[in-house]
Each structure stands twice: as C-alpha cells, then as structure tokens.
C-alpha cells in the first residue's frame, strides 16, 4: 500500500517545453495599424542616419550621429559631450514615464505595435508566410519528411531572414559612423573590424530573436510584461474578451438557430490561431498577451460571418466589461489619478530637460593641482602652486577666456606660453593650460587654502568656475589638521 503511494510521487519539472506557434494570417483594422506602425518605424530606423545637418566646415554633417572616437553625440542642432550623458538618462526617464502613461491608458500598445521585437517578428513572420504559406501549409511542411522542396523553402526563408538581419545590423552601425562613407566602405568590402563585429552582432541577434525566439522573448526574457500589470487598473483599455456575451460558448451548426442560452462565442478557435504568442484571450488577461489586437480582427471576421454583433473581443476596460454585463452604459475614463500623475511627471521631466538644454553651458573649466610638488617656495619666500587648467569650448567658433583666481590675497596668476587675459581655445575642443599661482606666505593661514579658479568668456561674458586647493607649508606647529 505504502509503496504504491511512493510510486505515484513524480518530481515536477520547472522546464516548459517550447511549443512552436504557427500564427494564421488575418486581415482587419489592427492588422492595418500594425502594418502602418511597422512601415513607419522601419522607415525611421533605416532612413534617419541619412538625414544631413550642416554644422559648418570640418564638422560631421549627419543629423543623428554618435561619434565614439571623437567622443561627441549629435542630434540635429544639439551636440552632446561625454560629460553631458545625463541627457541620455533624461531621455530614458522620459521614455519610461511615457510608457507608463500609455500603458495605464491603452494597455500594452508598446508591446503590440511598436516594440522592435514585435516589429521584426512581424516582418519575419510575413516572410515566412510568403515562402512557406499560411498556418496549415506550414504545419504540414514541418511534419513532412525532408525533401528537396522542403529544403528549398526552408533555405530561402532563412536566407531572406539573414538578409533582413544583415540590413538591420548594417543600419545600426550607420548611427555611429558617417552613413555615406560607411556605405561606400561596405560596398567596397573594407569596413573596420569594429564595424564588422557590430554588424555581425546585430545580424545574429535580429535573426535569433525575430526568427527563432519570437514570443519567448516576450514571455521569458523581457522584464516589462512582469511588472506592466502594476500600471493597469479597472479603467485601462485592454484587449478583452466580453465573456458575459460569449459564454457559454458552443459550436454553431449550419441551419440551426442558436439557443437563447448560448453565448456568441462559437469556439471556432480563430482568435487563438492568429495570436502571435499563442494565447487564448478568452482566459482573460495574461502575461503572454502583447495586446496586438489581431484576435479582435479574427473574432470580428467570424462575428460578421455568423451575423452577430461585432466586438466580442475588443479594446475595453474591466469596469466597462462589467457594466456591459450588467446592462449599464459603458463609460471610458481616461482622466484618473494614475494618468494625471504620469502626465504631470512627463511634463515635469520634459520641462526640466528643456530647461537644462536651454540654459546649457557652452563652456566648462577644471583645474587640477600638481601632485608633485604640492607647492614650491620661491626665492623671495612666496609660495607657488602649479595647476593644469582645462577649458572646454563647446562653441562652433574659437573663443577667448579670461582666467582669474579668488580666495587668495595678493595672488599672481601666470599662464605658460599664453596671456591669462585672453586664453584662446579652438572651436569644439578643450584647451589645456599650465597655470602658476603664487601668493605671499604671510597671507597663507592654512596648509590647504580653498580657492576658486574662474574662467570668463571674453566675448559673451559666460563664466564657469572650479573649486581648487592652494597648498602651503604648515605653520605654527600644525594647528591645521587636514
């Protein structure tokens, strides 16, 4: 008796076997939206690096360019230096809040229509459909033993996929190089090793993620589906199966009137067959549903055929679905505490970014004191400190800067090989100057004296300063502890 019980215990596996999904083609409103989004996004992705923007002679004329070797990023009229990379952080914050707002209003529209994983998967599925046919043909083909025809179809599919992936990787590197030059280098087969490496990387990831991994990226790899539920509430519009109308589901028979007790769902399963992630929307909200709306198209086509009202599956909120079930009018509520907070945060971050961009400094100064010697005693007993002063000129023209020091009595400032009243810095570059600062010992009360080194743009009056330390010998037996 006991042995039987023991034999029934089976260790459960945490591994879910991959079930290949064969989405069926469907036409309709959401398919049109998806194609439009795909076309627009791919056009932006492939064409944006070719936009030109004149920045004057000797400067890159690409509107969107991240120039790694020169350490500059260009976005039309904006030029970002490496120390200003917080603009990128700002853009990411903006993107996140925008995503929160869109998700709380319309559910997973990002996932369903605009996510690169969705866009490229859609494109790859279309290629697959052209070559191997629709769902049933593909199912049949995969079950067939290997034949010349099967080999030809499979090979051409993977070849086309690789071409698309290669173009994707090829377009990616355009954002990091001058696009026309790089295109010429690629045509003449002389790209750099880095370029080949990145094209290879993006070709491989595109091919694997859009061709092979597909919905598994959304279900297992992407963190967003795991916590996007936190942005939903009962007023969020989601792809919803109106169960109150559809249930109890049951097959329809030709020439047989549906009973009043039967729901509208005829359990044809089309909504499941068209789903790119293979979910059954009739089971309600689920992690794997990317909200693309293709099941809405599918169900509407069936409802039209059996002459029942459309929108059995539709974009609806949970509260509306409940209201409809109870026979009450549905109300769309877009203005909610949640959406107000997201919108306010979006406006706030946008305003902060525009403000920092508008008041962006075109110069910066830094001063680094010599480590050896920390200070030098001169012949007349004065104390001298050496500094390396760097002035960044972010202007497209050469500028002159006046260097002054504050915090020292009777200090004398000298710049090697230049006049401290007019330090010339070339356009869009950093000028490095050796600065000697001396002060009488009697005025130096501490071992470490706080000073401010200030640079002023002679032409515009813009200024920037750097806090530095002026070192001096210890006095009076060390009353100073630092």
């Amino acid at each position, binding site marked *: 008796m006991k042995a039987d019980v023991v034999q029934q215990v089976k260790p459960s596996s945490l591994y879910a076997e991959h079930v290949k999904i064969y989405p069926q083609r469907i036409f309709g409103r959401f398919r049109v939206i998806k194609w439009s989004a795909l076309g627009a996004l791919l056009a932006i992705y492939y064409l944006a690096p070719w936009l030109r923007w004149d920045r004057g002679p000797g400067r890159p004329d690409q509107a969107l360019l991240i120039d790694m070797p020169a350490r500059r990023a260009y976005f039309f009229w904006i030029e970002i230096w490496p120390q200003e990379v917080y603009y990128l952080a700002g853009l990411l914050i903006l993107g996140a809040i925008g995503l929160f707002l869109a998700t709380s209003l319309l559910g997973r529209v990002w996932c369903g229509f605009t996510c690169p994983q969705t866009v490229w998967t859609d494109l790859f599925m279309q290629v697959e459909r052209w070559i191997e046919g629709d769902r049933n043909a593909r199912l049949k083909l995969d079950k067939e033993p290997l034949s010349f025809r099967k080999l030809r179809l499979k090979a051409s599919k993977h070849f086309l996929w690789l071409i698309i992936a290669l173009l994707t990787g090829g377009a990616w590197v355009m954002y990091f190089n001058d696009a026309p030059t790089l295109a010429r280098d690629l045509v003449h087969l002389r790209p750099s090793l880095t370029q080949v490496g990145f094209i290879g990387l993006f070709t491989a990831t595109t091919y694997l993620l859009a061709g092979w991994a597909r919905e598994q990226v959304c279900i297992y790899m992407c963190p967003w589906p795991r916590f996007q539920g936190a942005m939903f509430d009962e007023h969020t519009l989601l792809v919803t199966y109106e169960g109150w109308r559809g249930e109890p589901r049951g097959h329809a028979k030709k020439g047989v009137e549906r009973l009043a007790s039967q729901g509208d769902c005829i359990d044809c399963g089309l909504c499941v067959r068209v789903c790119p992630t293979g979910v059954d929307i009739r089971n309600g909200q689920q992690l794997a549903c990317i909200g693309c709306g293709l099941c809405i198209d599918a169900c509407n086509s069936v409802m039209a055929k059996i002459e029942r009202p459309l929108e059995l599956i539709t974009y609806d909120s949970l509260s509306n679905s409940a209201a409809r079930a109870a026979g009450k009018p549905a109300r769309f509520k877009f203005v909610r505490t949640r959406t107000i907070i997201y919108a306010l945060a979006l406006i706030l971050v946008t305003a902060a970014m525009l403000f920092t961009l508008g008041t962006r400094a075109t110069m910066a100064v830094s001063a680094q004191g010599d480590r050896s010697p920390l200070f*030098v005693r001169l*012949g007349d007993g004065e104390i001298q400190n*050496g500094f390396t002063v760097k002035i960044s000129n972010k202007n497209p023209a050469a500028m002159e800067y006046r260097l002054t020091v504050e915090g020292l009595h009777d200090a004398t400032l000298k710049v090697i*090989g*230049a006049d401290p009243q007019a330090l010339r810095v070339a356009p869009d570059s950093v000028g490095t100057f050796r600065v000697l600062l001396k002060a009488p010992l009697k005025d130096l009360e501490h071992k470490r004296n706080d000073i401010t080194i200030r640079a002023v743009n002679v032409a515009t009056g813009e200024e920037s300063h750097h806090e530095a330390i002026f070192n001096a010998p210890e006095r009076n037996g060390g009353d100073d502890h630092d």
Partner: protein
Amino acid sequence: MTDINKDALTGKSTTGHEWDGIQELNTPLPKWWLTVFYACIAFAVLWWVLYPAIPFVHGYTKGLLGYNSHATYEQEAAAAADAQRVWLDKIAAASTEQINSDPELLNFAMGGGKALFNENCAACHAPGGAGRPNFPVLADDDWLWGGSLAAIEQTVRHGIRATDPDTRTNIMPNFGADGILKPEEIADVANYVLSLSGQTTDPAIVERGAKIFADNCVACHAEGGKGNPELGAPNLTDQIWLHGGDMPAIVAQITKPRHGVMPAWQGRLSDTQIKMLAVYVHALGGGQ
C-alpha cells in the same frame, strides 16, 4: 520485484554500485553543459591550428593565420610614431623660444617633455621637478646656471661637471678642509651669509663676516651674495638652499663643499627630445 537498477522513488536508473545498502542515482551531466564543453574543446583545437599555440625548446607553432603579437605591437608603435611625426618635425625645426610661443607646439612639447622627464630626470629631481635633498628643485625660480630656455637647454644638453667637452663646471674651494679659513672665520662668514636672507644675527659678527666674504667669496657669489649664473654661483640672499640653509649646513658647505654632477644628455637623447625637456622644465614653475 523491482528492477535492481531502477530507483523506486524517482524511476531513474542507478549506477549499479552499492555501498552499505545505499545506491547512487545515475545523473548524467546536463546536455547543454556537455555541448558547451565539447564546443570549448573544438574551439581550442581550432585555436591551436589558427594561432601560435604550442611552445617548443626552440620556437613554437606559428598557426595558419600568421598572427604575431610582436609584429602587431610594432605596427601600432609605428602608426603612433607616424602620428607624432608631424609634430616632432615641427619641433626639430623650431627653437625652444619658438616652441614656447606656439600654443599647439607647446602643448605637444609639454606632453613629450613630461614623459621624458619622468623617465630620465625624476630619479634625482623628483616628479614635477620637486627636487630632493642636494638635488635642485626645478619648479622654483632659483637657477644655479640660469633659468632661460637657452640656459636650461644648454644644461640638459651638456650637463654640469659632466664628461661632455662643453659642460659647465665650477669648483668652490675647500675653505675649511684646506685650511684657507680658520673655523672662527668660517663661523663669522656663515653668520654673514645668514644675514643676507634676513635671518637676524649679531651685527658685530656679521661685520667681521662681511670682510671675510669680500676677501674670499665675492669673486664668484658677487657683491652682496647675489650669485652669478654664468659661473654657477648660487644666490645667497634668497630663501632657497640646495644643501641646507641653517648654520651647521652653511658651515659644512664652506668647510668642504659638495659639488653636484648632472650628466650630459646629448647623445643619449635626441635633439628634439632635449628641446621638449627644456621647454617642459622651463614651464615647471620658474622659467625666466
């Protein structure tokens, strides 16, 4: 009767061994792990074939790709030298004065000079020309042999008391050790020297010392102890003391002077390198 090689609980096969009634489950390595393991072996074999791999007593396997890290290094070093050449040619053609008045050239020379200084000079003069006991500070404004660009270049090129035929040299007599001055006279003149830099001492002793100074020292150290860079005679009126500035140190220097030696760098460094060094040292803090 259950199969002797099947575990009743899990249904898995056992290794077939039994120790004190305990059998071990046969759990093979995960498939992915084995795949990666074999892929690594294949990778290693491929690597051996393509790249230099196996060392012998004389030489090593060269690999099919002909890769060689020494050659790669030499190529990169040559490319870097090519990039520098345009600047080095300009420096070779320019005087130190011209280098100092061209901001771009100065910037390059400062970088090159710093590297050369740290490699060749910092052992004695310390990084940044901070100096060490008995080795002059180069960041201050006191120069034994002159602090102009030309004087600094001359010193770097030919050294001080070096073997170079154009080297500059001087010798301060052993006033005490050779019995030129008596110890009391040395003490008096040392007191006078201290007074030159404002360190108060007895006026009577200072007066005696001044007389001894005028008789013995003024030829080199000049009137009032101002020094003479032509002769390498230090200025005694300032706050900077190469061999110490207190009474015992000054007495020791008069009694039996120390004489520092700096090697000549001509022949060890190129003309361009010497110019960059001179410009760098001139910019350390006290160039004249």
